[in-house]
């Protein structure tokens, strides 16, 4: 029995690698083909007479314009400021949302007291908070951060509550029988059991946070990628507009990768299947 098991554990990595390798080549090939097709269609949209796409300047022109934009401070400051706003708003949402969520899940009276407020405020889209946020906060910077915060806050709150109140009762029972104090129960059982839900909340929350920072910068900002995007409309620079859109897409993608890495760091048992 043991020999067989040891054998299984030795041959596992090679098998996994082989599978990844096969998957990667096929995936890579298809990905390159589809992106390449879109690039070609876009470049020759005008002569080919493709609707919608032919209204855009050809890809080569975008690339030419991008050189100008990509070397300007305005563009990189935009990145920096948007990222700073995302980071502050998002981290604040975790720092406040996770403890409140845990408290609400584990303490009945807190839940009953806070839940009505949550249910009244949560359905209001964060974008609808922009006007009052501008009036309320002393600086535009703070109001943008506040909108980002709201975007990430509700989802992390709900996910934390959901995760912490749905811990498998057998884990609690086993822990109780083995002699856990309430303290052990919280730090060693409930908190780690909730981490995967919190990470899921973070991944979704990060997506909403980028939506919110773009919207808030368009309305209330004087800087940032969202503002740059809106400004390109006002000066009628389609190429700049498209580059900003792609930049925001890349930023969003990188952020979710960071959350994913963070997730596999704090919940390593989840990827070990």
């Amino acid at each position, binding site marked *: 029995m043991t020999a067989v098991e040891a054998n299984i554990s030795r041959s596992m990595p090679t098998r996994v690698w082989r599978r990844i390798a096969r998957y990667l080549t096929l995936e890579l090939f298809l990905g390159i083909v589809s992106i390449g097709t879109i690039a070609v269609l876009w470049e020759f949209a005008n002569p080919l007479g493709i609707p919608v796409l032919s209204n855009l300047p050809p890809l080569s022109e975008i690339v030419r314009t991008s050189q100008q934009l990509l070397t300007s401070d305005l563009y990189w400051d935009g990145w920096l400021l948007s990222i700073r706003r995302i980071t502050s708003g998002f981290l604040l949402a975790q720092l406040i949302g996770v403890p409140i969520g845990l408290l609400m899940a584990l303490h009945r009276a807190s839940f009953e007291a806070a839940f009505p407020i949550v249910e009244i405020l949560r359905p209001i889209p964060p974008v609808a908070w922009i006007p009052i946020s501008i009036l309320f906060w002393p600086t535009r910077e703070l109001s943008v951060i506040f909108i980002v915060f709201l975007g990430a806050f509700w989802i992390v709150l709900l996910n934390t509550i959901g995760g912490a109140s749905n811990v498998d009762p057998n884990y609690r029972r086993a822990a109780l029988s083995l002699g856990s104090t309430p303290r052990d129960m919280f730090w*060693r059982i409930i908190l780690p059991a909730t981490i995967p839900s919190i990470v899921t909340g973070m991944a979704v929350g990060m997506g909403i946070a980028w939506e919110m920072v773009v919207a808030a910068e368009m309305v209330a900002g004087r800087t940032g990628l969202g503002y740059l995007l809106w400004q390109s409309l006002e000066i009628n620079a389609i190429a700049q507009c498209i580059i900003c859109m792609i930049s925001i897409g890349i930023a969003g993608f990188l952020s979710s990768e960071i959350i994913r890495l963070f997730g596999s760091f704090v919940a390593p048992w989840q990827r070990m299947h």
Partner: protein
Amino acid sequence: MSPIELTKERGVVLSNVAKTFGDEFDLIPVIHDCSFKIEDGQFTILIGPSGCGKTTLINLIAGYERPTSGRISCDGEEVRGPTRDRLVLFQETSLFPWMSVLQNVMYGPVVQGRKKSAQSEAVELLSKVGLQDFRDKYPNQLSGGMQRRAELARTLINKPRILLMDEPFRGLDAMTRQLMQEYLLKLFEGSRQTILFVTTEIDEAILLGDSLVLLSSAPTSVRECIRVDLPRPRSASMLTTQRYAQLKSKVLAILYQEALQSFASGSRAAADMIEAFELRHQAGEP
């Protein structure tokens, strides 16, 4: 030691235990008057039709729930809550997925504040259940049978007075199940660890147990207690002996009766429906 303590009854005793779920006007009796004794160093089996409240009995003995009436005592002391005297091996794995196998086994000693002294014991136990090479793996990297064995090690390191096993081998394939039964037999025959084992499989019950407690269909009561007088050490080859066949047919007869009864009580609903249908037609509706 006071004389009262000396006269304490060893082992776990259930006397007239009943358990009812639900609110005042919607009571569901699950256990109705159960009395039996789990003797020290014995392998006791609870067997009965499915849905008869065996898991509820385990929860009561473990102390996760309190009986509505009656008394459960362990070594003469009333059971008032979960302690490490009575540890449960659940139907589904309850290994903590965020801890390595070794951390899982060490959980009891760590929260009880005897981490250092238990370390070598944990390693030894893991090799006893054949998991010495898997101590740093997470539970979801193990097979079903390995998870069960890791869980067994996690309970045994706490030296429980009684080990409560709630259909622990359900869901394992036939081969693994047989291997696990052999592991458990070897372990029990080597240590005489008191075990209460819940199952619905007659073969498993007779192969493992010293005494069988046959339960009725819900609301549960004890239908009969049968001693299994097969010699130890036991092995799967005993399943072909004549004594085994006798025991099996005896158990089978009682369980068949119970099944018939639960079927009869189940079909009452159908009778109600027929009655209602006839009443409506008598009222003269077209």
